């Protein structure tokens, strides 16, 4: 038995080492990533649950296994607002690096608690990767650099392992999406279509009629059979990419960004919370941030941070008073749109274009297609 365990341990060690090598990231990039998560939350995707208190209690239908199932109904406005405000404070802490580890852990816990209630209408939205990644990244050095009150540094070995675990969790998540589709969509039957069912039901039932969606109506429907196969291959392949090495993992992340971009413009399903998740494995350099840090004294930095916090807090106070909820900064664009659905689509489009750019750049570098000035600077600093 011991021999079997030793043999399994050795084989698994090889696999985990491969996953670590493919999913690695460095401290500087992770710190920029933490800021990006903070910005993403505050500008585009501030979690808000206080709206739940405005709807009828008779709609309360939580999943059988769920935190919400311990309750008799939706919580009161006051409780939900406490969750919203706490989440907002955590996102500010992530943005400026104020004990980001604790802030990240608290954010994930509160987001899951709040979501337990918002998913109690008989439908679960699958945003679970977002809190899971924030929780996991809290155990890396993402709270060490560009931070007002930095976290205690963790060992590089731990950081590599955490990122590998997150990558495996992402692969498993994609597998859960692809498994059922593989059973039903890989049918070699042109008279049944999976993608086309998503499209037509969404187009006519829930008005998903933006961007390129109307053009799908002009194309012979059997053409889209190929989309069914592509989706299944895409959703079942990340674990192979992860084990195959970094450049293949980056390529999969790039294809994932393309997939979501296509979903946004064709199916009008934006799913922007997966964008920072894919970026968690990309080396991100942001020279403007480094220059700002270099060229600014402490007073200037504190002034910038306190002004930003004041503006964002006034914005949230205004929204709590006028709309009874915490809102992302992008809410001011709502007046230009037909409604929140359209706004979320434009947010999705913007976020996926940015992610498409960053993942594309990473792939181009990994396959030695291009080299950027920051790469040369990184290489020079490593050599020195």
């Amino acid at each position, binding site marked *: 038995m011991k021999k079997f*365990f030793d043999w*399994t*341990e050795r084989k*698994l060690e090889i696999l*985990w080492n491969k996953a670590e090598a493919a999913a690695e990231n460095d401290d500087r990039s992770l710190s920029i990533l933490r800021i990006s998560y903070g910005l993403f939350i505050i500008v585009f995707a501030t979690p808000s649950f206080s*709206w739940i208190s405005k*709807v*009828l*209690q*008779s*709609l*309360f*239908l*939580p*999943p*059988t*296994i769920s*935190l919400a199932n311990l309750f*008799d109904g939706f919580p009161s406005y006051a409780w939900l607002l406490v969750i919203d405000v706490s989440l907002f404070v955590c996102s500010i802490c992530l943005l400026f690096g104020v004990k980001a580890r604790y802030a990240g852990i608290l954010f994930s816990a509160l987001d899951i608690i709040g*979501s*337990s209630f918002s998913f109690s*209408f*008989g*439908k*679960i*939205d*699958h945003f*679970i*990767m977002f809190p*899971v990644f924030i929780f996991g990244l809290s155990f890396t050095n993402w709270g060490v650099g560009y931070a007002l009150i930095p976290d205690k540094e963790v060992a590089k070995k731990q950081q590599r*392992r955490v990122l590998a*675990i997150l990558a*495996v*969790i992402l692969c498993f998540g994609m597998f*859960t*999406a*692809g*498994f*059922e*589709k593989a059973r*039903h969509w890989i049918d070699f039957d042109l*008279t*049944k*279509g*999976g993608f086309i*069912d998503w499209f*037509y*039901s969404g187009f*006519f*039932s*829930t*008005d998903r009629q933006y961007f390129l969606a109307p053009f799908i*109506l*002009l194309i*012979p*429907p*059997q053409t889209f*059979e190929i989309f069914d196969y592509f989706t299944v291959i895409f959703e079942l392949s990340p674990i192979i990419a992860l084990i195959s090495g970094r450049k293949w993992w980056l390529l999969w992340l790039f294809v994932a960004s393309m997939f979501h971009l296509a979903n946004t413009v064709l199916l009008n399903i934006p799913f922007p919370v997966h964008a920072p998740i894919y970026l968690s494995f990309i080396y991100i350099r942001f020279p403007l941030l480094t220059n700002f840090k270099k060229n600014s004294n402490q007073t200037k930095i504190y002034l910038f941070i306190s002004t930003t916090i004041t503006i964002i807090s006034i914005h949230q106070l205004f929204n709590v008073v006028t709309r009874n909820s915490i809102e992302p900064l992008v809410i001011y664009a709502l007046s230009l749109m*037909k*409604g929140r659905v359209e706004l979320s689509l434009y947010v999705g489009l913007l976020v996926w274009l940015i992610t498409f750019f960053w993942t594309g750049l990473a792939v181009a570098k990994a396959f030695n297609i291009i080299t950027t000035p920051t790469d040369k600077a990184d290489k020079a600093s490593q050599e020195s």
Partner: protein
Amino acid sequence: MIQYPNLSLTLLLSLVLLPPFVWTRRYGLEPYPAIILPSGASKASVTKTQVSFNRTSLWGKHKEKGDWIRVDLEPFLEPIPIHYLYAIAKNSFGLKSPNRKIRNGVITPEEVQGGKQWLRQKLVQSGYVADALMITIDKETFDVAANKIITSYREHEEILRLD
């Protein structure tokens, strides 16, 4: 020091990840939180130029003519996200007993009255008569060459009386 760190980690991850997935596949009841992403493996019937699919709609009564008009969903459901429509419609807006055992399967008369009041208010705000809301599921066929829906067959119709 753990003797088999990689084996332990793999087993631990499997224990966390697999049971909710197996539970969902086996019983069709998805737990939350769980690492599960959307599968949505339903299929539409397709020919060279036509697609048959299900369309879920809400209908309100026109104020003057009294005939049923399809409701503009986003303002009507607000603040509930529009893509919750299918689940909410299936649950008859919570005005009937739930289709699974929640809170001992009991909906109190107060909750039903509160629900009706909320829906009446929403219908009036959207410009409809407040006395009823209709939920339908139609099997529709869209023809690409004609660029329109050519047939519609009602599979489900439910009228919620709100008085």
